């Protein structure tokens, strides 16, 4: 991890009619870092992703990526600049094969590769996420865990500088979670910066360098996993879900163990 800032979110606000989904949020991500984004359901996390990658323009504020203002650009231009995304609700291109899905990611991603080269990248990425045996299956025929991997593979194939992962662990069984976390760590080894939304507390606490907490659209805390887990405001935000608060506290311990491996 370097100290170079790769993405700056500056006072971003996004409204839907009267609802303020994201409210004056500011933070930054450093190159090579894994930043966890957490918060109760409906906190505005996915909406913030949508603002970052150009699905929505922010109503206020701006997003700066590698020194360039990208807020307001359409999503395809943001993708070309080197931000890729795995969606929370998987969006496979159903009638295309797994391979073709990933080739799209590679061909139209940051490096804008011709088809032949894109296919090579896609093969490599499919191998990496473990989908290689399914390469000729139609994407619509995959099961949920495989579709999540496909989301990830497509984003990776774009060879982005920054990858946005939206709840890629949701709905997976413990074995699949462990495998996916491995993939996440390896992505970072490749030098890709990661911004990940996650509900599974122990996982996100374990893997993130720093964590940002959103609640009702506003940033209520930011810091290392320990700092965040001990923050009374964060615990209060999760009080609507007392079990969640409990989890947070419990898993802090796990995280300290995890920290001992000295990943980073």
């Amino acid at each position, binding site marked *: 991890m370097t100290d170079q800032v790769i993405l700056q979110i500056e006072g971003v606000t996004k409204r839907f009619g009267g609802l303020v989904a994201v409210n004056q949020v500011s933070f930054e991500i450093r190159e090579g870092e894994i930043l966890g984004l957490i918060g109760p359901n409906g906190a505005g996390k996915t909406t913030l992703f949508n603002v970052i990658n150009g*699905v929505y323009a922010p109503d206020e504020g701006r997003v700066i990526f590698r020194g360039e203002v990208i807020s307001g650009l359409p999503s395809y231009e943001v993708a070309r600049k080197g931000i890729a995304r795995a969606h929370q609700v998987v969006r496979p291109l159903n009638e295309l094969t797994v391979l073709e899905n990933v080739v799209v990611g590679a061909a139209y*991603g940051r490096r804008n590769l011709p088809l032949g080269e894109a296919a090579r990248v896609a093969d490599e990425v499919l191998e990496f996420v473990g989908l290689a045996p399914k390469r000729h299956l139609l994407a619509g025929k995959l099961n949920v865990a495989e579709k999540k991997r496909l989301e990830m593979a497509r984003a990776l194939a774009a060879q982005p500088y920054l990858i946005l992962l939206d709840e890629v662990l949701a709905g997976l069984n413990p074995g699949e979670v462990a495998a996916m976390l491995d993939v996440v760590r390896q992505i970072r080894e490749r030098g890709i910066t990661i911004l990940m939304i996650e509900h599974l507390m122990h996982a996100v606490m374990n893997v993130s360098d720093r964590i940002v907490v959103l609640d009702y659209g506003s940033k209520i805390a930011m810091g290392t996993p320990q700092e965040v887990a001990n923050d009374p405001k964060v615990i209060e935000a999760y009080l609507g879900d007392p079990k969640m608060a409990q989890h947070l506290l419990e898993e802090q311990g796990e995280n300290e163990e995890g920290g001992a491996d000295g990943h980073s």
Partner: protein
Amino acid sequence: MKRLKAPALWTILAAVAVAGIWPLLNRSATLREDMFLILMFVTLASSLNILLGYTGYVNFGHIVFFGLGGYIGFYLISQQGWHLIPAALAAALVTTLLAALMGGAVLRLRGAYFALATLGINEATRAFVTNFKPFGEATGLSLHFSRYQEYGGPASALWFTYALLVIVTLVTLLVSYLVKTSKFGLGLMAIREDEDAAMVLGIHAPRAKTIAFALSAFFPAIVGTLFFFKNGNIEPGDAFRLHMSIEGIVMIMLGGFGTVTGPVIGSAVYERLRGYLLTTPLFKDLQLFFAGMLLLIIILFVPSGFIGWLRERSARLREVLQ
């Protein structure tokens, strides 16, 4: 180019070329007329397939390109004294340009709204042409007999037009195949599957859709010029027949949506079937009824069409049959 080594492409091109040249060898005028219709529908359906099958936008007004191109070409030939070939090319270029301009606006609509808008464009154009003096208003334009002299008399003009159609059909199929197997085509298919996701993946959807729309306008415009030149007259009712637009869609569905071969097989089968129904006394009056029933059966039971059905059988077939 590795893509050009695909056997499936050459098989279909060879098949169409052989079928196309057959009447030329036989010198049979009836055969030629039959083949003219089939080849015309192959180009109409294949070009429509670029937008409908690859990009997933349901265009009900595809025939507007045929009609408009036909009118422009016919006008250039009959009123300005142009030769058929430059007239057809000019018609195609103008129509493509208009499509590009229109596409930029209408392609913002999705689903049924887009389908309705294309229908509206066809009807608006038809209504406009019906009132447009240079295009002969409601009566249309016709070609003086003597204009065929330039081509060695009416008979050889017809053969000449037909030969051009064979070439145009082959080119259309080649383009359809090249689009389908290109990076651009992959982008179109991504748009078809999920436009927003495609944009997040980096595909400039507004531009890609507009190019697909414009490209799909080029060949029908040429074919329109050839068809009406062959007929010797053009009028709004024949040029902008909504029914023909939808028949084009039916042919695509019959053969296989989004495949290169599908529209060829669909057009040939549909045209032959119609010919058979029309010439069989028992079915003659009911041909439309049977065609409708066939369509319904396909929609309900084989929605991916004949080629689509084959492609679903195995990954190998999926690769061979583009």
